C-alpha cells in the first residue's frame, strides 16, 4: 500500500510503462473517468487506485487530481473552506450548464438550504413512505411475474425510485417520469459531452413550469412549498427564483438516477449468489445490513469534484489554488487501510464504513429514502420471486463516467 505521492512514484508497479501495458494507459498520471477500459474493468481499477495511488491525476481537458483513500477523501470533503463546491462537481464542466443547488454551493448559502430541506428527508419522515413504496414494488412485480422473465432496469429499477420520489416527496405526476429519466441520463452520459446541457435544459424547463404552477396552488406543506417559501441568505437577500428551480432539479437528479444502480447491482448479485439469497430469505432482518454492504461495493456516484480555494498539500501532492479535485467515493469505500478484506462482499459484515453517500456537509440528502427503497425492494422481490437467475448468454450492460449506471439486466425465474 502506498501512502503518499513519493511512495507511489517509487513503486515499480505504478511505473508509467507498466501501467500502459496493464491498463492501456497510465492511470496514475493520465486517468480518464470516461475511458471504456474503466467501465469494463471497474473493480480492478478502483482497487488498484486505492491501494497503489493515494492520489492520481487526469490530463483530460484542463486536468484534475483524484483523491482515493478513505482518510484523505474524508479530510478533503469535510474541509469545504479549502475545497469548494461552488464551481461545480463535474470535471471540465461543459459550457452553459447551470449550477445545481445545494450541491454546487458552499456554506453559509448551502447551510441555509439544508436546514430548510433536511426535515423533509429525515429518517422519521421517510419511514412514513414505507407502505406506499412497498405497494409500488408489488404493483411493478405484478406486471411481469407471470412471464417468468423481465429486463430489470426498464421494468423495475428505473421506475421504483422515480415513483417513490415523485409520489411521496415531489408530488409530480409519474406520467412524466420517462421523459425526466431520459433527460437526466442523457444530461449525465451523452457523448460528446457538449450535448449534455441541452438535455439538462429540458429537465430545468419542466421543473420550472411545475414550480410556477405549484406557486398558484393551495399549500400542501410538502418539500415544494418549502422550496417556494425560500430562504434568506446571510447577506439579507432572498434566494432568487433560479436557485429554487435548481434545488428542485438537484433533488430530481439525485432522486431518480443513482438508486437504480445500487438496486440493479444488488439484484444482479443475488441472481448470481443463491446462497446469499437463501440467507436473506431465512432471516430478512439481515437485509438492512446487506443494503449497506451493497451500497458500499456498488457505488453509482464514483467521484465528484471540488475546486481548491488556496494552495494546499494532499497525500504529498501540491495542489494550486483553482485546481480541480475529484473525491473518488467508490475507491474510498474499498480502502484496506480503513476496513478488512474490502474486496469481499459480506452481507454480515460487523461494521460497514463507506462513502457512497458522500462525506461532509453535502452528505446525500436522499440517503434515508434510498436506503428505504433498497431495503423494501429486496424484501418484496425475495418474497415474491425467491428463485431467479441471470438469463443464460446475457450479461449486465454498464456505462461509467463520474457516475456508473446499469443499462440492461435480463432475469428469468420458474413460472
Amino acid at each position: 500500500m502506498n501512502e503518499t505521492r513519493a511512495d507511489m512514484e517509487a513503486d515499480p508497479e505504478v511505473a508509467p510503462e507498466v501501467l500502459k501495458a496493464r491498463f492501456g494507459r497510465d492511470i496514475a498520471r493520465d486517468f480518464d473517468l470516461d475511458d471504456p477500459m474503466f467501465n469494463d474493468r471497474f473493480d480492478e481499477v478502483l482497487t488498484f487506485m486505492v491501494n497503489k495511488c493515494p492520489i492520481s491525476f487526469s490530463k483530460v481537458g484542463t486536468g484534475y487530481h483524484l483523491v482515493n483513500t478513505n482518510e484523505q477523501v474524508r479530510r478533503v470533503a469535510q474541509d469545504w473552506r479549502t475545497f469548494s463546491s461552488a464551481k461545480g462537481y463535474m470535471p471540465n464542466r461543459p459550457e452553459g450548464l447551470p449550477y445545481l443547488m445545494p450541491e454546487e454551493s458552499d456554506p453559509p448559502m448551502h447551510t441555509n438550504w439544508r436546514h430548510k430541506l433536511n426535515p423533509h428527508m429525515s429518517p422519521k419522515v421517510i419511514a412514513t413512505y414505507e407502505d406506499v413504496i412497498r405497494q409500488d414494488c408489488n404493483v411493478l412485480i405484478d406486471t411481469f411475474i407471470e412471464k417468468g422473465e423481465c429486463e430489470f432496469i426498464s421494468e423495475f429499477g428505473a421506475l421504483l425510485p422515480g415513483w417513490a420520489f415523485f409520489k411521496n416527496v415531489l408530488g409530480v405526476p409519474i406520467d412524466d417520469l420517462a421523459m425526466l429519466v431520459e433527460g437526466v441520463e442523457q444530461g449525465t452520459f451523452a457523448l460528446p459531452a457538449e450535448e449534455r446541457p441541452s438535455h439538462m435544459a429540458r429537465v430545468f424547463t419542466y421543473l420550472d413550469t411545475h414550480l410556477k404552477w405549484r406557486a398558484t396552488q393551495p399549500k400542501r406543506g410538502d418539500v415544494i412549498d418549502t422550496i417556494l417559501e425560500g430562504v434568506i441568505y446571510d447577506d439579507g437577500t432572498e434566494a432568487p427564483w433560479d436557485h429554487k428551480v435548481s434545488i428542485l432539479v438537484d433533488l430530481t437528479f439525485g432522486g431518480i438516477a443513482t438508486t437504480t444502480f445500487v438496486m440493479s447491482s444488488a439484484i444482479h448479485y443475488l441472481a448470481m449468489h443463491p446462497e446469499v439469497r437463501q440467507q436473506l430469505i431465512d432471516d430478512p432482518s439481515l437485509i438492512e445490513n446487506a443494503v449497506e454492504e451493497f451500497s458500499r461495493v456498488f457505488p453509482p456516484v464514483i467521484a465528484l469534484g471540488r475546486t481548491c480555494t488556496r494552495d494546499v498539500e494532499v497525500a504529498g501532492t501540491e495542489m494550486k489554488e483553482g485546481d480541480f479535485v475529484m473525491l473518488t467515493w467508490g475507491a474510498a469505500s474499498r480502502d484496506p487501510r480503513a476496513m478488512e478484506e474490502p474486496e469481499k462482499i459480506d452481507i454480515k459484515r460487523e461494521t460497514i464504513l463507506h462513502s457512497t453517500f458522500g462525506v461532509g456537509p453535502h452528505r446525500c440528502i436522499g440517503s434515508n429514502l434510498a436506503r428505504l427503497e433498497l431495503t423494501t425492494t429486496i424484501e418484496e422481490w425475495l418474497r415474491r420471486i425467491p428463485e431467479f437467475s441471470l438469463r443464460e448468454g446475457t450479461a449486465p450492460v454498464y456505462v461509467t463516467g463520474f457516475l456508473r449506471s446499469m443499462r440492461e439486466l435480463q432475469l428469468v425465474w420458474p413460472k
Partner: protein
Amino acid sequence: MRVKIDGEHCTGHGRCAKYAPNVFILDDDGYNADRGNEIDVPAGEEENAKRGMKSCPERAITLVAE
C-alpha cells in the same frame, strides 16, 4: 465509556443510531441529537456504540474514556 460527538462533523448519516439505537438518538433532521456534546454510554451498550462509531463516515464520534 464516554464519547464525544463532533458538532461540525456530524452531517446526519444516521449510521450511529442504526447500530446503537440505545446510545445515539437522531433529532428531527436526522442528525445526532447530542452533537457538540459528550455522552456516557449505558453499561452493556459498549459494543454497539463501537460499531456505531466505526461506521460513521465522518468519524464524528470519538472515544473520551473507556
